């Protein structure tokens, strides 16, 4: 591909939206709308001639590179059939704290883990492993979290009492929250 076509391909790839011809022309002081259109044609032909998985299309008022529709389906199917996802160590730790200490607020979880847990709580909630079960007392009435029926199902438990009890847990995790 010629130098202008390469530059346009890079710009279309990096842009967070479809790009109109006049903005593409601004990339190179020597380019005109006509040379840009010609270069876009070269990109489109290259994608077609060499059998690529992507194509160049003009939609609305701009140009964009899109994956070809037949592969979009394959990608979606593959994601559905993807290997089961493993929770990260941090997510498992947060889940463990909630399972043993529910209902429990975010501040208390963060106190135990020593780090911010906002993103992890959000993702566990999206995966329906935890849910909001109430609001605590005190400043701002914090949200309290507990585990869901799906949590039991995932761990093949009938009820929470089936979780193994470690005596140590009684001390550290079942301890009453500190009075504030």
């Amino acid at each position, binding site marked *: 591909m010629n130098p202008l076509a390469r530059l346009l391909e*890079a710009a279309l*790839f*990096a*842009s*967070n*939206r*479809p790009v109109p011809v006049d903005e593409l022309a601004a990339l190179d002081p020597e380019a005109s709308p006509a040379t840009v259109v010609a270069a876009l044609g070269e990109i489109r032909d290259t994608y077609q001639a060499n059998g690529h998985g992507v194509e160049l299309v003009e939609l609305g008022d701009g140009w*964009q590179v*899109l*994956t070809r529709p037949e592969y*979009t389906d394959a*990608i*979606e199917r593959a*994601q*559905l059939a*993807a*290997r*089961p*996802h*493993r*929770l990260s*160590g941090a997510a*498992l*730790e947060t*889940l*463990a*704290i909630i*399972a*043993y200490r529910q209902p429990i607020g975010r501040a208390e979880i963060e106190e*135990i*883990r*020593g780090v911010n847990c906002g993103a992890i709580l959000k993702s566990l909630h*999206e*995966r329906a*492993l935890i849910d909001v079960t109430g609001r605590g007392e005190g400043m701002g009435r914090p949200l309290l979290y507990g585990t869901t029926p799906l949590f039991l199902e*995932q*761990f*093949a*438990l009938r009820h929470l009492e089936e979780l*193994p009890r*470690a005596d*140590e*847990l009684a*001390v*550290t*995790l079942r*301890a009453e929250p500190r009075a504030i």
Partner: protein
Amino acid sequence: MTAPANLGDPFVVELQQFEGPLDLLLSLIRDEQVDIYDIPIARIAEQFLARIQTLAIDQAAEYLEMAARLLRIKAQLLLPRNQDDEAWEDPRAELVRRLLEYQQVREISDHLGRMAEDRRSRFARAWLPQQAVEPPPAPLALSLGELLSAVDRVLRMAREPHLHDVVPRPLDVDGFIGTIRAILALRAHARWYDVIRPSAESWEVLSALLALLELARRGELRLRQATPFGSMVITRESTGQAA
């Protein structure tokens, strides 16, 4: 890193280009072209003190701590010693080790800086038109064993509520006496936070306090507090000894 030659200009601006006292020290060693294994401490300490004349307050403690250390090493080197004393340890040894270690860190961070620059100069796909049809998350693979080992990790991570052993920490009053003298050698007045950094541990706070009281007793400085709980002003006494 060219030092500004303007003599009327304080060094504050220049110090901001250093990442800390070790960085400044390494740069002095480079500028003076001296052997890092045989640092002429007296000369380097003098240069170091000259450079930190006008420190921004928030950096003072770390640079002054190093100044005090250099002066202490200088003093130790002046002590007479027996030529064939096998047990003699060069008082500079620990400093040399730290400087070499820090120099290694600088090398690695230069390398990381180049790698980051390389990655910064390439853009990833910014616009993903397929985002609207984001598939549901993949199924989860979870086992009770994993959950329990997470419990175990949490237990190991959790702060133990009441099982602290109280370990006596040796106080370093002499060290702080050196620091305070170094500060008062540079200026007539100082405040508590010039002596100790805000995040100091309690043994450091205690050491600093004892050092201040000791120096006040010896008549090297005067402590004044205008209001109860007000900030403490440390003033050099004219008879005070210079560092």
